[in-house]
């Protein structure tokens, strides 16, 4: 067969499969632009007069998810910041320095990363309850550290290991110069790694649901819980759910698009050592 014809058939086939694959997303965009009456039309309409009402309601109407977005932003940002502050020095120590019990510590971090969330949500419900920290920002941030910190440490370790060794050898004199080495030589070398770690940590915190639904929900309401209000036994506000969900997913979709190549690298790098968690 002619190579050109074969290539175009393959491209067509691949495009078709891809379109089917992301159909749920494409369709959610369609539905989000429909009026509630239009949504109910069956068989589904592809041609209709689009409206931005659902998006307006999700931002400013009675179904606004703005305060939930703010809560998620607060929790995800603080979690990410703390995670970076803790994980970068720890990863440097694990990857490059003569740390006592390095292997055992590395294994310990890996083990903490594997803890299933169900194993944590039960004790945390009881423990946070005793402290009166349920439904608080600091309570949620502590809980989110349990999955973000081990993951970030391992991800950073794999980036630190890629730096050529000669870089820091000469600079070792006293404690001050060690700190300087870390700040001015090592950290600039792993800028890319820090960016990937930031994106991953933020995304995992933003998307988290189990801890959010059980350990918060009234005063503190992450956006993943808000989605639930649109689907109840009595009625389902399909179009409004789609609009709100799309707004809520904008940050992670942007992260996916800008971090495209890095995310694949990050996923596999993390995979070499341990693996992420959603």
């Amino acid at each position, binding site marked *: 067969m002619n190579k050109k014809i074969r290539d175009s058939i393959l491209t067509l086939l691949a495009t078709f499969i891809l379109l089917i694959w992301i159909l749920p997303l494409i369709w959610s965009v369609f539905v989000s632009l429909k009026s509630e009456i239009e949504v109910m039309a069956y068989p589904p309409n592809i041609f209709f007069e689009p409206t931005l009402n659902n998006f307006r309601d999700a931002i400013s109407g009675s179904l606004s998810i703005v305060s939930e977005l703010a809560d998620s932003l607060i929790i995800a940002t603080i979690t990410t910041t703390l995670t970076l502050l803790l994980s970068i020095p720890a990863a440097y120590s694990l990857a490059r320095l003569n740390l006592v019990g390095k292997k055992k510590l590395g294994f310990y971090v890996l083990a903490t990363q594997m803890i299933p969330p169900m194993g944590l949500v039960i004790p945390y419900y009881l423990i946070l309850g005793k402290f009166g920290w349920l439904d608080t920002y600091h309570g949620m941030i502590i809980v989110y550290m349990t999955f973000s910190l081990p993951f970030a440490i391992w991800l950073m370790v794999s980036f630190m290991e890629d730096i050529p060794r000669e870089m820091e050898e000469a600079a070792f004199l006293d404690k001050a110069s060690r700190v300087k080495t870390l700040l001015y030589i090592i950290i600039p070398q792993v800028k890319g790694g820090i960016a990937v770690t930031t994106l991953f940590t933020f995304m995992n915190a933003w998307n988290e649901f189990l801890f959010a639904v059980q350990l918060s929900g009234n005063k503190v309401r992450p956006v993943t819980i808000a989605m639930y209000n649109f689907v109840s036994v009595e009625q389902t506000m399909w179009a409004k759910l789609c609009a709100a*969900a799309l707004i809520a997913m904008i940050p992670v979709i942007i992260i996916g698009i800008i971090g495209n190549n890095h995310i694949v690298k990050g996923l596999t790098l993390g995979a070499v050592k341990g693996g992420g968690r959603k």
Partner: protein
Amino acid sequence: MNPSVKQEKSFAIMLAAPSVLVLIITTTFPILYLIWSSFQNINLAMPMNDGFAGIENYIEMFKDKQYWKSFRLTIIYTVSTVSLQLLIGLGLALLILRIPKAQWVFRLMAILPIVLAPVVVGLFWRTLMLTPDFGIVDFFTQAIGLGSHAWLSEPKLALFSVILIHTWQWTPFAFLVLLASLASLPSDLYEAAKIDRASAIKRFFYITLPLIRPAIIIIVIMRSMIALSAYAAIYAATRGGPGTATEILNLYAYRTSFLEVNFGYGSTLAVFILVVTVSVATVLYLIRKKNN
């Protein structure tokens, strides 16, 4: 000891200590607490019976029919989602690899399902895709003469649906990792095999597959861990129902703890999930180590 070496050691400890301390407080301590609660009666509905229970909860677990059912569902769910992701992901990667142009478009699109919150994925599928007489999947099965189905409220179909949802979201991950791995294979091996007139099937099984085995093992490790901790998408789509048709161990432990407020027994179930996860991880890592 050389003073510089000694100083490096103390510096290393100084840098690692905060993280280790935070991990001990936020993960190890709660897990110890969980193990302790699994040996207690903690039932918010019947607090008068609270106290040390010994191995009572564990005996109850092995006698509990729902536990066995959930355990079986967890195995079905994990094995089927991981194998489907691998097979479909590999098929797609082999296909996209042969496309001459614009591979990046496919890679970019593949990122989308991965970055979505699983709870949103579960809700989208429950509403837009699987609702009878409304959803796209139902529309298509009617259009091709297979009829309308209660995708999420008929037990067997519901299990199929939650497996489908998980596979939909995570196959792109396997696809992307396999695509990267396939793209990095040395092409001269294939040239040699072509000269030797090895068939395409033979080339795949004797050259490609052994070379991408590390990537496959990594995918199996990561995807098994994620499948074993799956919760949000199923909760959003079926809440474990109809009845307990899709109630994998995570959902059963959740229901026991938070809806029936039986935290003692819930903890026991969670300890079991922990044991399963650690065992699976250990076995997979040993396989991986042997392979390297």
